[in-house]
């Protein structure tokens, strides 16, 4: 079962960079820029931690990454595609290649666990048989096969986050983004969630975890760290292969 799940999320990357930001700026309305001159690139199959204090711009950067927001300036290339030049009608196809995990889970309350997980596959118009099989694999992978028909409100925070992770990866995204995924769970569950991300990453999925919890960084020794402060990226990807010791403290 787990092998099937592993096959489901495995990817091979022909391209050098899966994400490229060049001098990207973002402002909401007429306010000041919340992101300034952000330039970096992600390579396929890597694990990134995006750190910074609350309000530093982590969530804004993730919003740009999962195409919830267009940049005010600069260029973003996702999967080799220039986002600014992509017609709006084609944006959903790009979004389907991105998995997203939210701090507040964003599970749909009236749907069962299985239906929540199946959502990306239904959007992609896959057949019911394929959906059932994929959802079954994901439920087993996150250890929630026995809660398939439960409603999200009956689950613990950790269980809900595992459902959210299963939903994020069931459609085999090229990149998985997680915004403070451990913010609403205890330490033990945080460890378990990070291990799930790490196992996904070992299977080839590019993983980006935004967190202000520096203790998490030690859980994935191979991860690269990006630090954002005041809307600027201070440690662009590639510059630091290993988080500096003072950040781990």
């Amino acid at each position: 079962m787990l092998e099937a799940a592993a096959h489901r999320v495995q990817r091979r990357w022909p391209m050098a960079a899966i994400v490229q930001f060049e001098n990207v700026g973002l402002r909401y309305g007429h306010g000041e820029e919340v992101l300034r001159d952000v330039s970096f690139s992600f390579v396929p199959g890597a694990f990134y931690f995006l750190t910074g204090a609350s309000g530093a711009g982590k969530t804004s950067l993730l919003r740009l990454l999962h195409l919830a927001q267009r940049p005010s300036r600069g260029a973003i290339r996702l999967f080799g595609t220039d986002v600014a030049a992509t017609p709006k009608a084609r944006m959903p196809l790009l979004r389907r290649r991105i998995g997203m995990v939210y701090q507040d889970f964003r599970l749909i309350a009236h749907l069962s666990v299985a239906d929540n997980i199946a959502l990306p596959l239904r959007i992609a118009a896959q057949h019911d048989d394929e959906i059932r099989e994929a959802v079954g694999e994901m439920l087993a992978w996150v250890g929630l096969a026995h809660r398939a028909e439960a409603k999200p409100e009956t689950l613990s925070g950790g269980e809900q986050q595992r459902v959210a992770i299963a939903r994020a990866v069931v459609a085999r995204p090229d990149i998985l983004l997680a915004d403070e995924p451990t913010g609403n769970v205890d330490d033990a569950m945080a460890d378990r969630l990070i291990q799930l991300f790490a196992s996904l990453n070992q299977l080839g999925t590019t993983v980006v975890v935004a967190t202000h919890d520096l203790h998490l960084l030690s859980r994935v020794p191979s991860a690269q760290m990006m630090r954002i402060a005041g809307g600027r990226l201070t440690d662009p990807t590639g510059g630091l292969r290993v988080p500096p010791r003072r950040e781990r403290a």
Partner: protein
Amino acid sequence: MIAATARLLDTARDGWTMAGVLAVMIFLAVLATAGGIATATASRALGATLAGQVTVQIVAPDADTRARRAAQTVAALRRSPAIVHVVPVSRAAVADLLGPWLGSAATEADLPVPALIDVTVAPGRDAVAEVRRIVAAVDPAAQLDAHGAALAGTDTLLRMMMLLAAAIVALMIAASIAMVLLSTRAGLAAHQLTIEVMHRLGATEGQIAMLFCRRMARDAALAAAIGAPLAWGVIVLLGEANAGTGSQLLGGMMLGRPGWIAAVTLPVMVVALAALVAYAAVRRALGRLA
């Protein structure tokens, strides 16, 4: 697959209220449509019946002269190919007409009652001019009473009723659209999380809009299934009641096949319109997202 997709919108947030209001609107709109069409049919039927009918009055004071000129006029009218029907009104029938005003005096032989001749002119001709031309040659003093002239006021009233019916239907449809828009906006607000999650997971605007379109079509179909048969039942009952009146005016108030087609088509159109409006409203709202 469709059932699973339909579950994406919370079924607990049902549209019974909207369906109920829409059912009332469909009921009234179908009745107004039927009323307008029946009125138009009656107006046309009555106009066609009366337009070619003229009554000639021979008003010579002397009874013998009156009878002679009446006979000559009837003969002249019957010779004309433009005249379809000529019926001299009997003295007894005239007395019956005058009875309500004159009482028993209406039957007195020496009462100078005009001789009346009912004439029907072939369709497509100016009835009054045709009859006047023939009658003037026999009795220049004869008077003509065009039945169509008596309908002038009624015709105006009937036209106003038709316009009123059309306005009511238009208002009902406009109110239905407004209702659907409000309901759709409420739905968008209620399902904001679902929409946002679907959008982020790569759902197209069309996919999300189709969810609301299907939901609205379902609610509107439910409304039509309640409102339309009720309206059809009322139309049938009114038709049966009308058939028993024997009235020349009301007798023409029939829906006929085109009327029934309109009465059946209207609810279907409202359902389609509701679904279309919901789809367009959602697409427009989603267009504001990134």
